[in-house]
């Protein structure tokens, strides 16, 4: 009998206690010492879900919503729940075959697994959505329609201004300094106002913490939503743009390559900015975005190129008021200064032709401006740069002249609030030194006097120069956004600041303005007249050259017109460029005039309707380009789609 083994009871108790101590010390390590398990548990069980706010809406100057949000539907699939459905019927609605159906299901499984939702067909076209919605009960619970916000442009206009949003690219995702707050799949502004004001429009994304299970399926709010933060909708933008004016401009630029920029000189607010030919911005939203984008991108008429700020042109005769201003300010001429032009300028080795032969057409500044005398301004230019008080052209004259140009806003980006602005070109001393290796004089650059030669301006710069003339020296940086709702940013500060120009005397401006009103009243721009409104304007016909088949060839002239009105209290300053069309007075002046009439009088008079019709019907784009362009059919499709939706 082993009754005497009492001490062994102690051993057994010790073994038990030893084991339990071992377990407790391990628990101590796991639960108290080591902190990583708590973190891992959260990562395991808490799903961080981003709640997207609705993007800010953009209104025009009349508070019409010109860029809003629309809802489209995605068809999403949970592969594990797809059972016993009429695949053929679904394929029929979606217009895909069974092979494609199978492929998409497999893609969904590969991407997100069997129990999580994946997009099966994104951004359904309205008619497909309608059909699906009726028969959705046949396909649930495997399939579901999920609403998704997209941008919509009710006026189908101002595509290049408003810009578009698109999914963030992998390269941007890597750039965490700028795009750190974005996740893959997020949409953001790529161009236009959508890009510049992204930080305001995007709003504040909310975060919802959801408890998830081991298969990543959400199971409800974590801690009753204690840690959630609500999404804050994007702020709305209010523009100085007049959408009807913009639409009119786009209609008039149909079939033409070029641009219109209209600015309110009193605020610098842009009233219209047309790049012709334009496209319907709705093409870049919704289901066909990428297909449409590549079509627009490759189109022969280059609709994605915002000519108003990116294209640069020789200003031609529209530049003459600026030449006059420099001459007057430097004191090399007075308003009564005349030049005996006999049909050409002979001051340099090659004569520069003038359209007028009659004596006295350049007897003073006003006459010279209204007749656009080439000889007069060639002469004034040379007088300005060769002026003795700057020590001649190479000493300081050329540089002084270039400085004047810079204060007019030429040769550098003005700072409009949409991206990709061009800088144009103002040649200065350095430029000519480099190009002619020191052997040059005022005859080398005499063409600058008539807005030709090396000088290149963007239409925006031309319009801004008109603001400076209209305001007699001052201007605001041209911009679209007049105000941001509940603004707490400093984005608009720089547009509220008045810039003083070259401190040119008021009398110089008066002389130039008088000359410019004469242009419309009795000079080259008579076609631009509007009943009851005094207009200051200047026509321009710019020679230009392009490379055709590798040879520098003279192309058809650009037609230009710059103007402001009413002359006594300017409310609109405008620049119009119609590429490769012909005379400025024929092609550009009517467009500018109709724009001004529409803006100042709110409608175009019956008397001028035939002119409007004629302008709209004019096609100046090269036939060979038009033949290969799909722009019209694309725009028509967009309009059809919109009609169907509403």
């Amino acid at each position, binding site marked *: 009998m082993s009754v005497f083994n009492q001490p*062994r009871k102690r*051993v057994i108790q010790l073994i038990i206690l030893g084991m339990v101590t071992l377990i407790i010390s*391990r628990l101590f390590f796991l639960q108290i010492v080591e902190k990583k398990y708590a973190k891992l548990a959260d990562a395991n069980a808490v799903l961080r879900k981003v709640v997207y706010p609705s993007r800010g809406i953009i209104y025009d100057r009349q508070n019409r919503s010109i860029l809003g949000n629309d809802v489209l539907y995605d068809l999403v699939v949970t592969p594990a729940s797809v059972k016993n459905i009429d695949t053929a019927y679904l394929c029929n609605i979606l217009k895909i075959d069974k092979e494609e159906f199978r492929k998409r299901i497999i893609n969904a499984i590969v991407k997100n697994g069997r129990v999580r939702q994946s997009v099966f067909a994104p951004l359904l076209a309205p008619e497909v959505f309608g059909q699906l919605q009726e028969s959705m009960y046949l396909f649930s619970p495997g399939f579901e329609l999920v609403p998704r916000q997209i941008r919509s442009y009710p006026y189908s206009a101002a595509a290049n201004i408003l810009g578009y949003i698109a999914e963030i690219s992998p390269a941007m995702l890597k750039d965490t300094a700028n795009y750190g707050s974005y996740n893959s799949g997020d949409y953001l502004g790529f161009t236009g106002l959508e890009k510049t004001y992204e930080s305001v429009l995007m709003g504040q994304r909310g975060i919802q913490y959801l408890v998830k299970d081991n298969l990543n399926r959400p199971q409800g709010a974590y801690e009753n939503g204690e840690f959630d933060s609500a999404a804050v909708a994007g702020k709305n933008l209010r523009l100085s743009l007049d959408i009807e004016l913009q639409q009119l401009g786009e209609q008039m630029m149909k079939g033409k390559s070029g641009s219109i920029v209209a600015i309110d000189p009193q605020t610098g607010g842009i009233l219209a900015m047309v790049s012709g030919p334009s496209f319907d911005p709705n093409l870049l939203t919704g289901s066909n975005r990428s297909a449409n984008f590549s079509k627009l991108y490759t189109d022969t008429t280059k609709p994605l190129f915002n000519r108003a700020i990116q294209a640069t042109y020789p200003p031609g005769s529209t530049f003459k008021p600026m030449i006059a201003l420099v001459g007057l300010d430097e004191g090399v001429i007075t308003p009564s200064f005349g030049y005996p032009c006999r049909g050409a300028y002979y001051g340099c080795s090659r004569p520069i032709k003038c359209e007028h032969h009659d004596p006295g057409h350049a007897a003073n500044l006003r006459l010279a401006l209204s007749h656009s005398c080439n000889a007069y301004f060639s002469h004034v230019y040379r007088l300005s740069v060769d002026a003795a008080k700057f020590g001649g052209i190479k000493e300081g004259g050329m540089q002084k002249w270039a400085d004047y140009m810079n204060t007019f806003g030429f040769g550098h980006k003005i700072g409009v609030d949409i991206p990709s602005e061009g800088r144009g070109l103002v040649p200065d001393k350095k430029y000519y030194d480099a190009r002619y290796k020191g052997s040059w004089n005022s005859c080398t650059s005499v063409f600058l006097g008539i807005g030709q030669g090396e000088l290149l301006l963007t239409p925006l710069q031309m319009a801004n120069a008109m603001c400076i003339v209209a305001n007699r020296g001052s201007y605001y940086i041209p911009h679209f956004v007049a105000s941001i709702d509940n603004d707490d940013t400093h984005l608009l500060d720089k547009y509220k600041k008045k810039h003083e120009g070259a401190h040119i005397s008021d009398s110089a401006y008066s002389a130039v303005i008088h000359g410019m009103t004469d242009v419309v009243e009795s000079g080259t721009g008579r076609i631009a007249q509007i009943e009851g409104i005094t207009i200051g304007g200047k026509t321009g016909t710019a020679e230009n050259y392009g490379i055709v088949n590798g040879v520098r060839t003279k192309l058809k002239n650009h037609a230009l017109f710059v103007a402001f009105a009413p002359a006594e209290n300017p409310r609109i300053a405008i620049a119009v460029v119609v590429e490769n069309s012909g005379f400025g007075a024929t092609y550009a002046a009517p467009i500018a005039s109709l724009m001004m009439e529409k803006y100042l009088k709110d409608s175009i008079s019956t008397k001028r309707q035939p002119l409007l019709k004629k302008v709209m019907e004019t096609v100046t784009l090269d036939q060979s380009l038009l033949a290969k362009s799909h722009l019209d059919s694309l725009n028509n499709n967009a309009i059809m789609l919109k009609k169907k939706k509403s």
Partner: protein
Amino acid sequence: MNRSQAKLTQGIDWPIVGLYLALVIIGIMSIFAAEYRGDDNVWYDIIHPNKNYSRQLVWFGVSLVLAAVIWLTDSKFFTATANLMYAGGLLLLLLVLGIGKDVKGSHSWLVIGGFQFQPAELTKLCTNLALAKYISSQETDFTKLRSRLIAAAIALIPAGIIILQDETGLALVYFSFFLVMYREGLPGVLLVIAFSGIVLVLSALLVDRTVLFSIFTVVTALVIYFSRREIKRKRSRLAIILGVYAFCALFVMFVVPFAFTKVLKDYQVRRIEVMLGKENDPKATYNTRQSMIAIGSGGFWGKGYLKGTQTRYDFVPEQSTDFIFCTIGEDFGFLGSIVFLAIYVALLFRVIFVAERQRSTFTRVYAYGVAGIIFFHLAINVAMTIGLAPVIGIPLPLVSYGGSSLMTFTMLIFILLRLDADRQMVLR
């Protein structure tokens, strides 16, 4: 004895009953916590036993009925039928080998009228009774090797059959009977040898074989050097030392690798490697990892009952059965785990206390058997959930979900209570 006149519950050991009830209730609450989703209709689920916790409630009811039946049975019935029950248990195990059903990779389940039943659980009880019967019989002299071998055979034969059923975890539990045999006089050196054996296996797995071999050689040389005087006096010492050396070397160089490549199943090898930290495949380490995350995230105070995120959302596999300790670790934290373990220690110590107050060897052996079985289950199960032991699928006694397990432990404990109530009798 005039039992009809005595109080019905006379002689019952209330502390054990109390601890038993505490553990079962904690168990049901933990299973509930593992399954509860916040929007469940609890009353509906209880009335229609379609959830594990509601089924466990039913099993608890059945167990209480069993307990009552046992309490009303005469103690002599258990001594008288111990061998018969053992034989019946073995027969059942063999039957399972033939007509058993595969559940989760182990061929150890019987299906009777829609209920699944695991005889390997029940045979623990039969074996415990048979072992008590054998050791307490007057013919047995436990100081003799023959008796010890027979006792070992009684304990290990069922384990052998259970291994054939691919239920290695439950088979391991039968080694707990060596604790009883130790109490009854098995030489203490066996414990040392068993412990050394475990160390040897672990080192064979963790340390490079040639390094280990060199260590053995150096240690042996040192031992011989320092005990050279004793060896001079007694030549057999040298033989023993060299024998141990040879055994260790052979064991490490050949037996362990052989066992790992030929005897153990692939998944078992992997589970051991996971425990040792040698296996990093996320799939293989998933269970242990999730279980450790759940327990570790409990912290000191725990997340609160029903607030655990890991245990409630199916991150931990086998949540209600083998990994039930995770729920306690996560919801009640370090403090709760200590309290929980303390309840077990109290139960074990009380059972040992009860064992030592017996006049009958039968009851004492039986009681130590109960303590050993519960201890083995507890130690292996909890150690597994915290990464101290490889994943071995055995339940936490009275707490884990499972009818077979709950009923077996109920019977084990209530037979002990019955026998203890009659401790004045000498039972054989």
